[in-house]
């Protein structure tokens, strides 16, 4: 891009590349320089750690209700008290404990949904990209059909039909959110499939499943991870939306979306009831999205601007 001649130092650096700089190490270096990735990863790490350690660090049982201690405000408000750092909800349950356990539900839904949808989507995308032709036409048609369906509407309808529960939400979302996986893996596979090493693998008589598993999949993993993080955030938001509408996770499970819905009636006079889970949700989704963006940047440096 520049027509200034390389300086001596640059030339030296080019001549003697740093010894043993593996691609992994380079990736790590790029990652450590990427602010968004660090912030997102950091927040996510904290949330995951708190969710995993919830039984150890939660000050109270998230389900234990005590009606005589309901609607205690958080500590920073006048009537707050340190027994209930984030206050209590309308049934006198500790808000902090519910928030911590709620993180588990959100993360569980995010992860399992992405596992299900990722498997479906990747399978379809790889098949479409690798085989091409009629297989591609059929699978692309299915993807297009799926893209034409508004996710929330279908999720609402199926939740209304089969009833609402934690498992129900995960299955419905898992069966709905595979479209981006399919689209991305399809094009990535098409790019990879033309590669020499694929031709080489074919030439030495590699079977198709083995070819896909050990040659194609590892090479499209990077975009897949990026899609997975974005879809995880998507799933968590959708769960919150469904639970808010009463068609997702059912009480007394402490889902953040449900907590927001339950806090709705106190919006005018006790805004913290709705603000706390909402802020938590914003942070989680923001962190996952930052992480996803960052991963895209560092794994595909050639696309960076």
């Amino acid at each position, binding site marked *: 891009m520049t027509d200034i001649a390389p300086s001596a130092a640059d030339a030296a650096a080019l001549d003697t590349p740093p010894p043993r700089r593996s691609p992994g190490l380079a990736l790590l270096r790029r990652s450590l320089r990427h602010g968004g990735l660090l912030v997102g990863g950091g927040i996510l790490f904290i949330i995951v750690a708190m969710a995993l350690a919830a039984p150890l660090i939660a000050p109270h049982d998230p*389900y*234990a*209700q005590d*009606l*005589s201690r*309901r*609607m205690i405000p958080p500590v*920073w*408000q*006048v009537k707050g008290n340190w027994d209930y750092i984030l206050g209590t909800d*309308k*049934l*006198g*349950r500790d808000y902090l404990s519910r928030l911590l356990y709620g993180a588990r539900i959100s993360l569980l839904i995010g992860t399992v949904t992405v596992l299900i949808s990722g498997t479906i989507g990747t399978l379809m995308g790889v098949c479409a990209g690798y085989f091409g032709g009629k297989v591609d036409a059929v699978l692309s048609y299915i993807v297009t059909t799926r893209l034409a369906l508004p996710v929330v509407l279908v999720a609402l309808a199926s939740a209304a039909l089969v*009833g*609402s*529960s934690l498992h129900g939400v995960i299955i419905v979302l898992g069966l709905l959110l595979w479209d981006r996986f399919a689209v991305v893996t399809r094009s990535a596979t098409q790019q990879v499939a033309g590669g020499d090493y694929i031709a080489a693998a074919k030439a030495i008589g590699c079977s198709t499943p083995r070819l896909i598993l050990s040659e194609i999949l590892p090479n499209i993993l990077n975009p897949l991870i990026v899609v997975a993080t974005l879809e995880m955030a998507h799933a968590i938001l959708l769960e919150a939306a469904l639970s808010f509408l*009463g068609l997702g996770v*059912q*009480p*007394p499970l402490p889902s953040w979306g449900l907590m927001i819905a*339950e806090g*709705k*009636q*106190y*919006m*005018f*006079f*006790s*805004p*913290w009831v709705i603000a706390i889970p909402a802020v938590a949700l914003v942070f989680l989704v923001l962190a996952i999205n930052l992480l996803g963006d960052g991963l895209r940047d560092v794994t595909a440096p050639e696309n960076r601007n």
Partner: protein
Amino acid sequence: MAHFKSHLSRVLAALALAAAPASAFAGKANDTLTYASDVEPENVGPYHNNVREGVIIARHVFDNLIFHDLKTGKYEPQLATEWTWTDPQTLDLTIRKGVTFHNGDPLTADDVVFTLNWAVKPESKVVTKQNVAWIKSAEKIGDDKVRIHLVGPFPAAIEYLSGPVVIYPKAYFEKVGLDGFAKAPIGSGPYKVTSVVPGKGVKMEKNTNYWKGSPLGTPSLGKLEFRLIPDPETQVAELMTGGVDWIWRVPADQAKQLESVPNLSVLAAETMRVGFLQLDAQGRAPGSAPLKDVRVRQAIAHAIDRKAMVDNLVRGGARLMNSACFIDQFGCTDKGVPRYDYDPAKAKKLLAEAGYPDGFAIEFYAYREREYAEAVVGYLRAIGIKANLNYMKYAALRELARAGKVPIFYQTWASFSVADASAFTGAWFKGDEDDLTRDPKLTQLLKTADTTVETDARLKTYEEALKLVGENAYVVPLFSYSTNYAFTNELSFSAQPDELPRFFQAKWK
């Protein structure tokens, strides 16, 4: 953050002021009282719905034969100028002359006879059969004389005639039929219906020809508009911005906070509504097999801290109920009815004895006051019963329950404001569609009680029936409801204990 709350209230107040011009659509300025509620009657015909909103419309649009004065407890003439019992199964009434329906037709003995005979016909499909099932037939025995034949002796007849039994116009109803009547009902009451839009609400207008001397008085407000607003937060927001003038069932927390809002008045009053858990003791619904065991039902009753719910959630004069009726109803008593005190340890023990030491999972259905239902679910969870809360619209849930698909139903019943225990027990234990218990012995007892004329014997039979309900824990009575009313302070409105707002007695200040 400490100031966040006060900031927010200021912002909200500013928003409220900014939206204030919208209030020109309602209120004193154009003589229209807009009231909001969260449920709408599926049919505004008073015999074809069993929701409170329908009862309110019925009292404004129709007249009763007899008027029950809640202040004195006496029955006064309304459409019937006088009535006499010729024997315990025959009631003669004289019908008032000079009363006209909203369409100008005179109200005569023929209309009374027609209404009663029509309501008792099975093909009329009256929703709450208990309200009319005591009537055998009616006949005209003179120009303005009507004779009602009863199925059997029924001392509470006068109370029903002053409540759910309202008079329809024969000629008009025969012309338009049930569907037409639901769209444009005509009565003789203080307000006439001008529009019915399902899903939106009902508009009413003052009946300027309302007959003089009615115990209901002369209506003052020019127009009434019932608006369906299912979401309680929207109701509060609409009230604060002047979109509606009157709301009720405001949760105790908000009511307390609304008191501090200028231009609003807040009123709390106990009502006849009783909340109770209906348990599928027959085990008809999928997954409700454990409920067949009386020990499980008793465990559920012991698991719930009803006192804590009354003191902290319901408040406003609500009382704990031990019997399956409203305690001030005639015939309702909790004497001899077992008390199920809050005792989770005992509940767990009972569950273990019944063979469920680790509890079980069950579906739980509710249709209003979601937080009360959630509190109950929380208490059940504490003894190991994992109740999955399903929150539904009332009409749909009622059909589900009638089809035998509801294991635990968080029910509430306000007895159509009838101050007689039969209006409660008759609706839930007499073998009708809503009866999930269907205990033949109980049904028989109630049939006897309903038709016993001699007061002491009648009270005794109810006592026995209620004891049977209690011992078997067929239902878990929770508490009476209190309702918080919040309304514009331009309105002079007073609440009555029967959960029946009487806008025909309200005035602008």
